[in-house]
């Protein structure tokens, strides 16, 4: 599904990704780990075409298309979803209206019929009920005055309703309590079960989420490149031995 070759990315003229390669097949769960500043968020932001990220070299193939040719909303409509660490507030824009518009933009893009208000309400009710997510969040303005936990729940809601093919979660577990993390895992696992071609790219520091959403591949980033890849056991090893313990130190190459 996703094939990244030799990707080099600058942020504010500083090179962060220095020739990264990564391949994600349909149905796979990948985790990015690494020390702060290694480039994990940068990779995910680059895949969404965030305005901070300047691609200087490399290719990204997504479902047979050149991803670098597509803009932010096009990539979203092609099924790429990025959850935000700190979702921004957009006062004045009703959450429900925003979600319906987003869903319909994707349907339009893919030549499907748009949902009217009634159909949307039905859809959202079913999805939310499945995971006990508070309906009241729908009535408020987008993230306006939401607590950290409410914002993360709103991200989940969007995930459920937009049904993306490549889910990218950037530290979705940060600031969440035990129960909230369980809900995230339940939602994500359910979505991955429902569509076997759906893939997940996660960034996290903590073992808890990984124990609930077992990854197929764990990649460790250092200095803008993937330096080690393994399976879930690598994450466990990292957890017990630390970065130095598994052979990743601050040596300048």
């Amino acid at each position: 599904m996703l094939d990244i070759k030799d990707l080099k990315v600058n942020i504010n003229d500083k090179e962060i990704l220095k020739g990264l390669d990564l391949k994600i097949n349909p149905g796979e769960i990948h985790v990015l780990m690494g020390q702060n500043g290694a480039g994990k968020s940068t990779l995910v932001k680059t895949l969404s075409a965030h305005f901070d990220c300047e691609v200087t070299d490399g290719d990204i193939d997504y479902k047979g298309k050149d991803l670098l040719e597509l803009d932010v909303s096009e990539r979203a409509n092609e099924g790429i979803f990025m959850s935000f660490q700190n979702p921004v507030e957009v006062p004045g824009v009703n959450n429900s209206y925003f979600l319906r518009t987003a869903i319909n933009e994707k349907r339009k893009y893919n030549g499907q019929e748009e949902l009217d208000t009634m159909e949307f309400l039905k859809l959202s009710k079913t999805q939310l009920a499945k995971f006990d997510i508070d309906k009241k969040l729908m009535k408020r303005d987008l993230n306006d005055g939401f607590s950290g936990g409410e914002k993360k729940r709103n991200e989940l809601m969007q995930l459920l309703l937009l049904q993306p093919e490549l889910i990218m979660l950037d530290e979705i577990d940060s600031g969440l309590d035990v129960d909230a993390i369980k809900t995230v895992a339940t939602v994500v696992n359910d979505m991955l079960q429902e569509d076997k071609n759906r893939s997940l790219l996660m960034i996290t520091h903590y073992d808890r989420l990984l124990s609930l959403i077992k990854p197929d591949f764990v990649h460790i980033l250092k200095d803008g490149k993937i330096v080690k890849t393994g399976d879930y056991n690598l994450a466990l090893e990292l957890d017990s031995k630390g970065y130095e313990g598994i052979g990743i130190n601050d040596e300048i190459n």
Partner: protein
Amino acid sequence: MSDNQQIKKLLNSDYKLGFETLVESDTFPKGLDENVIKAISKKKDEPEWLLDFRLKAYKKWQKMEEPSWANLNYPEIDYQDIAYFSAPKKALDSLDEVDPEILKTYEKLGIPLEEQKLLAGVKGVAVDAVFDSVSVKTTYQEELEELGVIFCSVSEAANKHPELLKKYLASVVPVTDNYFTALNSAVFTDGSFVYIPPNVRCPMELSTYFRINALDTGQFERTIIIADKGSYVSYNEGCSAPSRDERQLHAAVVELVALDDAQIKYSTIQNWYPGDETGKGGILNFVTKRGICKGDNSKISWTQVETGSSLTWKYPSCILKGKNSVGEFYSVAISSRAQQADTGSKMIHIGENTKSTIISKGISAMHGVNAYRGLVKVAKSAKNARNISECDSLLIGNGCKAHTYPYHEIRNSSSNIEHEATTSKISDEQLFYLNQRGISEEDAIAMIVNGFCKEVLKELPMEFAAEAKELLSISLEGSVG
């Protein structure tokens, strides 16, 4: 499509109403003097007293000086370089005789000139269509007359209802109020005259649609609306003009009178040509609009959506004379490209227990400059006056500006005045968030702007709300560059 290509495409989208109508018109040669005024009066078949009124106003105008205090930048207006009258040549007695090009124009603009065969229960909209200096057609006149409602052009009123016109003309806006009202009083061309008799609730929306078409002309419309005791009317003013390189002057005067227990709702959706990115062309919109809540328990609401015009200079105001009278002002003003707006409201509290509300939303984009200027004046006699003012500015991009000049003159200590102002910017992060959920740049801006303007948009009559929303998004096309 790469980002740059998309933006270029958006920037090149045109003012969609900028087409010109080719009709044979009777246009006066440029210039202004007493003879021109006499000729205008004659063309309109006006009674002697009205010509007198004009000539007196002209003399006063000649002694006045053009004001320069507004936060506006514009080249000097040469008043002799304007033609003060233009009307299509073909006779205008019946819709059949109107030049087909004009009919096509209104069709293109979406203005219904034919009284539509409506489904039971669906209300129509009565339209007075003004093309340059004349009213082309006023629909539903007979139905309205049956209720005693007068809805006709001012020219028609001069002959058919002289007593009423004489009584109220210049009663709210005196001739010498300002430079442009004096000019308008001398050369006003046409506009609507509305009278609602006591205890009648006008059954349909009344609407006047102004279309400036001829080159090098100015449009000076005059509108008077009188709501007699216990009556109600909702009136809408729409306008557009072709895109031209030269600027055109639009100096209008609107007077509203609400007697005891009466209510007037006046909405404007102004979509004049805004000029291009460098500020070339576009309409100079200098307007004096004032309503007097003469009677007790009367109410006047002004709702406006200003998206066009190169320069906008207007302060729809309410004089709250009657006890318990209410004045309201809801406005969305957009300054994009190189537009400039200096607009706001004046609420003058004179009677007891009066209340006013001002909600002004200014949106600046590209190199637009938006200034809010408001006055809340509470006279000594105004016991228990209450006012709430909220003026919010939204900035899109880095080249635009917003200014706020609120004035308060309070002479009665029992009054309660609240003022709130906010300034915000559409952040890149907000746009990116909406984009990443599949919403295009344009739609994202439209969503945020609509949310910003929600409070004002909901005051618009339903029939016009959709048009206003569309206008807002069209006006902001290409704003993110």
